[in-house]
Structure formats: C-alpha cells, structure tokens
C-alpha cells in the first residue's frame, strides 16, 4: 500500500519536473509571463510531491512497514528511534530519495523567494532546476527505487550500516552535506540562465551570490562535521585522510569559494563574468562527480555505498550536464562582455584573480590525485592509491600562499593604487607576522610550514581586524558614539563586509590550528595490565579494567582509563570496541579529552576481557578543538553577511526589476 503510493508520488514528481522544465525553457524563449507562472506552479507541485514521498518513507520506517523494499533493507525493530529516522540516508536508494527531498525544498523555496523578481532569468533558471529534478526523480523511479513491494513482508530487518549507528554525528553530517551539495543546483540554474540570455547583469548577481552562499555554508559545516566524525569514531587520531570521497566534498567547495570571491569582482568592476559563471557551473558538475564517486563503486572508501547499477546512469547525467555547460559556455561566453578592465597587479581585483587561480589550482591538484589511481589501473592494470605525501606536498604550499593572499588582498585598494598607498597598506602587518612567528618559535614549533602559516596568519590577522572594524572607526572619528558606530557600521550597514571578514578571521584560525595540531601531534603506543599506571604526554594514565556491555543492536568491550595530571584526577576515558551484528570486523570508538589547549585521545588497538590487558594508541595534539570552532565561526560569519539587515530588506523589497520587453503584467 505505502509502496504503491510512494511509486505514484515519485512518478508524479517525474512528470511535474519534466513538464515544468519544458515550460520554463519555453517561457524563457517566448518571454511569456504566463509560461513563467505555469513553470513556477509545476516547481511547487514537484516540491510538494517529492517532499511528500520522503515523508511517506519516514512514516514507513517509523512504523516498521517491512513490505516496503527500503525498510526491509535497512529497517530494524531493535535499533533506537534516532537510528530509524536517519536510516533514510543510510543506504543508496534512501539517500537518493533524501537528495530529491532536499532538492524539492530548495526548488520550492528558490521559486518562492524569487517570485516577481529577476523575470528575465527566472524561466530558464526554473527550467534548469527542474531538469536536474527530473533526472533525480527518474533515478528514484527506476534504477534506485526505494518503494519496491516486498512480499511476503519479513518480520524484522538487519538495521542500517553499523558505521552510521556508531556516532550521533552521522545523523547530522549527511544532511548538512546534502544541503550543501544539492543547494548548488540553484546557483547553477542562475548561471545557466545568464548564459542562455547572454547577459550577466547586476540584477542576477544578488540571487546568484546568495544562492551560492547558503549551500556553501552548509558544505563548509558538512566537511568539518565529516572530519570531526572521522576523528571521534575512526580512531586513528586524524580528521582528514584525502580519501576520494572526502575529496569529492572538498572539490565543489573550492570552486564555490572561488566563485563567491569572483562575484565580488563582477559586482565592483564588471569583469570576470564568464569566469564566474564557469566556476558556478564547475561547482555543480563537481557535485555530480562527487555523487558518482560515492555511488558508482568506482572508488574505495569508508563512505562508498555498495556497488550499484546507478553508476552508469549518474555518469550519463554527468556527461550530458558537462557537454551542456561546455556548449553553453562556448556559444555564449563572449556575449558576457566586460564593463571594465584589470587596473594593475597591485590592486584588490588582481589579488582576487590570484585567489581564484589558486583555488582552481587546488581543485585540479585534488582532482588529479583522486582520479590518478583510475588512470594507472586503466593503463597498466596495477592497483595503487595516492595518499598523504602527494596531497600534503601539493596542498600545503598552495594553502600557505592562499593564506598570504587572504592577508594581502583586503589591504589593497580597488583599482589603481600608487606605490605609496601599496607600501602603507602592506608594510605594517609584517610586524604582526613577525610577532606571531616569534610566539610560535617560543612555543617550540620548528616545522617550517607551520611557522610560515603562523606568520601569514599574523599578517592576515592584522589586515583582517583592521578592515573588519574600519567602518566603525571611521564613524567614531566623525564623532559618533562607539555603540552607535558599532551597530550602524558593523551590524546594520556593513553586514556583508563584516560577515566576510569574520569568515576570513575564522579561516586564519582554522589554518593555524590545522598546521599546529598536525605538526605537533604526539603518538604513543602502550600496553597495559589492569591497575597499571603509565606516564604519557604529561598525563598519568591508569587502566581500570575492561567490561563487556550489551545493547540490543551491538555488544561493546569498553576499556576504562583514569587520567590524572600532577596527581590530580582529570577525567575518565572509555575507548571501546563495538561489534555490530552482520559486520565483518568490530568498530573501535576512541575517547577524547578535549580542552582549549589540546586533545588527549585514546584508541584501543586490542583488548582482552579474560586477562584484563589492553594495547592502546595515545594521541596528544594541541589546538584541535579550534579547527571545529573556527569552521563553525566561518559558517556563522557567512550567515551573518547573508541575512539582510531589516532596513536593507525593506528597501530592497520596494525595488522591482523592470519586466522583460514584450511581457505584460498579469496577476
């Protein structure tokens, strides 16, 4: 019953999206406002249907209706309710349905919030969104159908993938990732619409930037949550392994970050238009590439879903989308004429260009490292993997230069600058850079790249903090009170600028925390018998014993450790080994004592219940928590800049774009 209803909803969503896409493109050609209105109605219809289908699946999961194929595959009566809820994205078919759900929400909201605005671009944008929607509805209806009927229905199911059940972060990381990934469809629609129209006017820049910023925030947080999860669960003391699927989430983030910067150059100077739409398109294509990587079985990774038949279908979609973008760019890029030109090497726009080239260089570096094993295997049949040494040696220098540009860029003025101005802008921050590096040196840091990162971070901190509060200081100079100046200059008028500099400050924090925590990390392997105490990384560690604990869905062996420092007890840590039913090997879960100064991290390598002995690996790394905090601040800073102040929102709603020629106002 539910299965049949689900299939009907999916087929209807396929129809609604396909029809809406055709209507949208047709309205874009004929410039008919009626056509646009119909396309919008179909967009709402699609959104309603696919969201309804996802809720129906949640209902089937929660009521343990094992006659529904997907529920029989991942459901279980013995798992906690939160695991049942997140089972929606625990396996291939459900995850594609979840994709549809998120896309439905984005398309519905984007259509709603752009109503009556950007009429020149909106029909084609809706056409592109709904074309993507039609592809995903097709996937759900056919190759990855979660609504198959199972008869006779089993009484119970195996439950979702154990890794998903192992930590609550797994309930949060995938939704953020999907909100980031899927949301890139919306700016892609605007970029394609601009190319189809052959015009990237000022009108479309705002929706393009905002539609790119929101999923960027989600993707930023998602990447951090993924790293944090790996750190809290996988037990190797690290958070990033250059795994193909981690790279898949990083690639669109890099191009999206580049695009967010190049849009500012388009806004200010009217240049880099073709480049900007290319970056936005590349972001979407990299999202589809990432989806292919996780779901085709081509890449080996902790993240990959099992081998599936949908790989070829996604590859075909990627090919069509790629060729569509290339064709569109080849035929229309020359129409997006520049309104200005680059003034000189020592200008802010030149630094934006350097930043963009670095981001694209990083994208290619990571992309090549990721697909290189495939190339080698295709050429000579040898299996290999590209790991840390390649990525570290390539990415660390580029990252360091990027951090330097983050400092230099905002110090330089737009347009042509005199050498006097340049000197005045670039020399003073050098003092802060030297102070930072000296602090690092006295904190016993000897790694060249870490010291350089700290120095560049100091440089950037000087510039960023100066720029951040510039509007407020200018107001105070004119005699305004500090509070009014802060509210007016920072919170109200200068929101976007202030938000942007908060992001920059957080990026510096993240860079320094990553560099210091990875280069100063201590790793010790220890063997304990019950009651034994050993000294490690400044702590006294006592093994209190091993217990077995049983829960309905897993059995765990827990090692209990007392942690003390200078004779005073600090905490108790309980790293464990979890054995889930149906897994080939137990999953270790480390335990971490986190402080602002650093983390003390225990992971079991071996534990013996009968003899009460254990072997553990202890990691002690400074500043790790600042990575997570910095990235959250990045997201919050961007969000702050994105949300308009009340006054600006009121002003903006009164300005309406002129209608395209030939259109008449109907409703």
């Amino acid at each position, binding site marked *: 019953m539910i299965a049949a209803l689900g299939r009907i909803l999916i087929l209807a969503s396929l129809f609604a999206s396909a029809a809406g896409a055709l209507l949208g493109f047709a309205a874009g050609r004929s410039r008919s406002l009626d056509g646009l209105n119909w396309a919008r109605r179909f967009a709402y219809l699609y959104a309603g249907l696919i969201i309804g289908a996802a809720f129906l699946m949640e209902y089937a999961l929660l009521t343990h209706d094992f006659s529904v194929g997907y529920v029989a595959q991942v459901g279980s009566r013995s798992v906690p309710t939160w695991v049942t809820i997140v089972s929606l994205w625990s396996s291939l078919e459900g995850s594609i349905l979840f994709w549809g759900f998120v896309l439905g929400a984005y398309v519905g909201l984007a259509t709603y919030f752009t109503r009556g605005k950007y009429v020149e671009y909106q029909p084609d944008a809706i056409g592109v969104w709904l074309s993507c929607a039609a592809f995903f509805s097709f996937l759900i209806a056919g190759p990855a159908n979660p609504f198959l009927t199972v008869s006779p229905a089993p009484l119970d199911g195996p439950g979702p993938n154990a890794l998903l059940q192992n930590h609550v972060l797994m309930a949060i990381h995938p939704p953020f990732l999907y909100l980031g990934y899927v949301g890139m469809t919306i700016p892609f629609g605007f970029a394609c619409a601009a190319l189809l129209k052959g015009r990237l006017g000022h009108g479309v820049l705002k929706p393009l930037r905002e539609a790119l910023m929101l999923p960027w925030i989600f993707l930023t947080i998602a990447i951090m949550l993924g790293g944090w999860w790996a750190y809290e669960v996988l037990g190797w003391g690290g958070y990033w392994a250059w795994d193909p699927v981690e790279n898949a989430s990083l690639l669109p983030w890099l191009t999206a970050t580049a695009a967010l910067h190049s849009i500012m150059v388009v806004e200010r100077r009217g240049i880099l238009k073709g480049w900007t739409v290319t970056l936005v398109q590349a972001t979407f294509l990299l999202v589809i590439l990432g989806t292919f990587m996780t779901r085709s079985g081509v890449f*080996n990774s902790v993240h990959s879903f099992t081998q599936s038949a949908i790989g070829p279908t996604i590859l075909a979609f*990627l090919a069509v989308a*790629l060729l569509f973008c*290339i064709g569109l760019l080849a035929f229309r890029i020359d129409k997006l004429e520049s309104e200005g030109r680059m003034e000189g090497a020592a200008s802010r726009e030149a630094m934006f260009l350097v930043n963009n080239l670095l981001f694209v260089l990083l994208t290619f570096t990571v992309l090549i490292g990721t697909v290189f094993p495939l190339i080698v295997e295709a050429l000579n049949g040898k299996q290999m993997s590209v790991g840390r040494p390649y990525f570290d040696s390539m990415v660390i220098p580029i990252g360091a230069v990027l951090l330097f540009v983050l400092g230099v860029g905002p110090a330089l003025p737009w347009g042509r600058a005199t050498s006097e101005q340049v000197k005045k802008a670039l020399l003073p921050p050098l003092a802060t850079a030297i102070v930072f590096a000296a602090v690092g040196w006295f904190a016993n840091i000897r790694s060249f790249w870490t010291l350089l990162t700290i120095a560049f971070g100091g440089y950037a901190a000087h510039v960023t903090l100066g720029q951040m509060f510039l509007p407020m200081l200018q107001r105070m100079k004119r005699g305004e009170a500090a509070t009014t100046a802060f509210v007016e200059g920072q919170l109200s008028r200068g929101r976007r600028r202030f938000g942007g500099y908060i992001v920059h400050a957080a990026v510096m924090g993240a860079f320094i925390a990553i560099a210091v925590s990875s280069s100063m990390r201590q790793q010790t392997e220890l063997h304990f018998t019950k009651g034994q105490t050993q000294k490690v990384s400044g702590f006294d560690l006592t093994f209190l014993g091993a217990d077995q604990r049983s829960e309905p869905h897993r059995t765990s062996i827990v090692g209990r450790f007392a942690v003390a420092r200078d004779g005073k007890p600090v905490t108790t840590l309980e790293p464990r080994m979890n054995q889930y039913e149906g897994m080939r090997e137990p999953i270790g879960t480390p335990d971490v004592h986190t402080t602002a100064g650093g983390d003390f991290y225990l992971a079991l390598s071996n534990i013996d219940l009968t003899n009460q002995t254990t072997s553990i690996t202890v990691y002690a790394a400074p500043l790790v928590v600042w990575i997570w905090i910095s990235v959250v601040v990045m997201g919050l800073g961007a969000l702050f800049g994105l949300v308009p102040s009340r006054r600006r929102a009121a002003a903006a709603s009164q300005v309406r774009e002129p209608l395209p020629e030939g259109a008449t106002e109907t409703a």
Partner: protein
Amino acid sequence: MNRTVLFVGVAIAAVLLGILFLGLGKNPNDIRSPLIGKQAPSFTLREVGTGRLVDLATLKGKPVVLNFWATWCAPCWEEHPVLVANARMFEPNVQFLGVVFQDEESKILNFLQQRGSSYPTVVDDKGKTAIAYGIGGVPETFFLDANGVIAAKHNGPMSPDILQANLQKVMR
C-alpha cells in the same frame, strides 16, 4: 562561438568521462592480494577440540581451501553451511581448513557443535597467521593448489558458485 572554450572544455570532458567510464563495473573493495601466485605462508596451529597440531606443509599434494573466520562474524555464519557441504562433496580430493582468529575456543566449539562441521578448524591465537596472510576482515578464503601456491582469494562470504569457480582454478 569561442573555439578555445569549446576545445579545452571538450578535451577535459573527454579525459574525465573516459577515465570514469573505464572505472565502472569493478569492485574497489576487491584489492588483489600480493600473495597470489606465491607460496602460501607456512604455519603450525592447534586444532580446536583435539589440540592436535596441524602443519600446513603436511597438507601438500592436494588443493587446500583456507577459510579465515570468527564466531562473532555474521557473514561467516551465512557462509558456514556452504563450506560444510562443499567440503563433504569434494572429499577426499580437496582439503578444507578453517582458521579462527580473535576468538575464544569455547565459543568456537559451541558454534561447531550447533552448526556442524566436516573439516578441521585451527585457532590462530596471536593472530600471527592472519597477519602473514594480510587478512583485512573475516571471512576471507585462500585457494592453494597441490604445491601449496596461492592461486586465488575471495573476500567476504562465498556462495556455492563462487566457491566452486575458485576451486576450478586449483583443481587440475
């Protein structure tokens, strides 16, 4: 039309799509064992129940199916009847041998009494044999020819078809 954009774009697209297309259809978890084609690492391990020592070298002369497993591994339960039935079917031409690692002897005995057995099972106490064979998870199965050379390896539980297809490679 901008020809540069077109040519560069099509070139990048062709290379990327070509690589991804070639990658389709293979199983990335199927990492080929470097031991294939090499002499199987030797071991002498204690048989469960009897305590008798089993030396791999003494089994030379006929093909050996070496199955690494554990009682805590659900896919191993699924595979167990397949192994028991096939060991009976190919007796005495093929020697089956179970190697249990990271497990307790009482649990193994219990398991074998409940589910039956038709071939010897040895215990890899310290996990040294599993390390020598590069075991990543259980079950994993090695197929040794009559000379003790590893001819094939399978990761994960085997269906009768998979088992017999691999046996073909060592029975000649």
